[in-house]
């Protein structure tokens, strides 16, 4: 029997992988992929909780997160593309005219 705890642990692990990826990877696109992983970890916990409580609002929340993530991906990739056109790099360490 897979209980809600298992889903939560999996979601926590995925979220942690995402956070570590954001902090350690230097390619802007991979950083962005790790952020998406974090969002999907959150989706997993929402669905697990919604099943657990037998409550719809968690499911609705997941739909909203997916929609927002899609919009964010569009904008994010456009921004990365704009940088690539001007700098020909997507390495976040090289994008540092202003000090971090």
């Amino acid at each position: 029997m897979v209980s809600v705890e298992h889903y939560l642990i999996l979601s926590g692990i995925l979220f942690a992988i995402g956070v570590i990826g954001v902090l350690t990877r230097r390619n802007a696109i991979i950083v962005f992929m790790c952020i998406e992983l974090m969002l999907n970890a959150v989706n997993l916990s929402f669905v697990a909780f919604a099943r657990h409580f037998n409550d719809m609002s968690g499911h609705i929340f997941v739909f909203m997160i997916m929609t927002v993530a899609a919009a964010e991906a569009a904008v994010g990739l456009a921004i990365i593309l704009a940088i690539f056109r001007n700098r020909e790099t997507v390495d976040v360490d090289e994008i540092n005219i202003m000090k971090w």
Partner: protein
Amino acid sequence: MEFTLPAIKIGAIAPELILVCSAAGLMMLDAFAKERGKTLLPILSIVGLALAMVASLKLWGKSEVTFAGMVAVDSYRVFFNIIFIIGALLTVLLSMNYTPREEIDRGEYYVLVLLATVGMMVMAAGTDLIMIFLGLELLSISVYVLAGFARGQLKSNEAALKYFLLGAFASGFLLYGMALVYGAVGSTNLAMIAETLATPHLPARVLLMVGVGLLVVGFGFKVAIVPFHMWTPDVYEGAPTSITAFMAVGVKAAAFAGFARVFIGALGALHPDWTMVLWVLAVATMTVGNLAAITQSNIKRMLAYSSIAHAGYVLVGMVAGNEVGRASMLFYLLAYTFMQAGAFGVVIMLGQKGEPRLNITDYAGVGHKYPLIGVAMAIFMFSLGGIPPTAGFVGKFYLFGAAIKAGYVWLVILGVINSAISIYYYLRVTVVMYMHEEGEEVLAVSRAPAVALALILTSVATLGLGIFPSWIWEPVQKTVNLLLG
């Protein structure tokens, strides 16, 4: 399965609807109009914002929740709507001359400003975690694009990338926090959360506490409180100046609107738990913001650190958490909107195409050559530093008064010390403007009637709020009751 449609009251979301429709209209106009029609874009966005203001004011004094407990119709929301609309109006005025000068006058600029304003309004109106998240993202995604709007400029690109990556990262934390709070309480509705937490036996306390901590991180990023402030100076420096003004006033106020509604409203029962955290964060934010601002030579970076420090002052009101504290937060955010937008207006006014003049020493002699700009900048700097008789002084007086009343004496002492530190770097700008000799370069001011109008409005409002604070303070005290639904 029984299914009932929730009652739909269009009037309750009229301000948002008006802005969405004007944004859609502007997009069409931009796509199909000839060159002359495009000059109408800023004027039409001002009309849309004014209509939204009227629609918001009609909701004043109501106290109800519609759309199945999702949307609050209360004075708290209306007051924040007023702040957002004023912020957006000032941004449009600041942009009218600035965007053509920087050759970034594309039509979607105004569309995005309006949509970001809708996002702010949704955040202030939401009484459900879903609504607050959607409002936040609508706001953030629009502002990511606006920050990178000067797409040929490396600094603007860089600002957009940093803001986007860190903003999305913070959204992840905020969402995980929301998920854990949902898991601990079993509902995303703020009223239900407050109700469950009011019972003596809290369910799943660990889950709840971790969730609340993640919410602090998520909201902390958006309002730029230390230690989640790293992005602020870079993004504020790189973004087009008019958008920097928009971020400093509108985005910050919107994030505080959601922050206060969730923490004071829904998580009010946990006040003793999160107060200590916010106490520490408030002190850290004020201190780091002010100390870092002293060393800045670029005026946009200085104002960015100053905006961090001001977020710390507003947090003092949140820590106080009493009714006066909440009212003073609202008052301070309104006062801050005028003074900060005004200061950025002066920066825009003194810049030239290809020569932004962002170094504080570039302002030498401005006070004598352009007395009106000098006086306006002096008013904003005095107000940001909290010197009477300006709005900034009265706002800080209310904030610190509320904290004293709630018993946080040390917090107020540290806040006042910080205020004194901040006067140093604010006055330095005034000193450079009046006491230093004009440099070799000819200091020219671009012809910018719309920016001049914005400067007049903001300086009059900054002084007006400082001299007659009760005009706003009386109604603001009625708005402190957070409706949850």
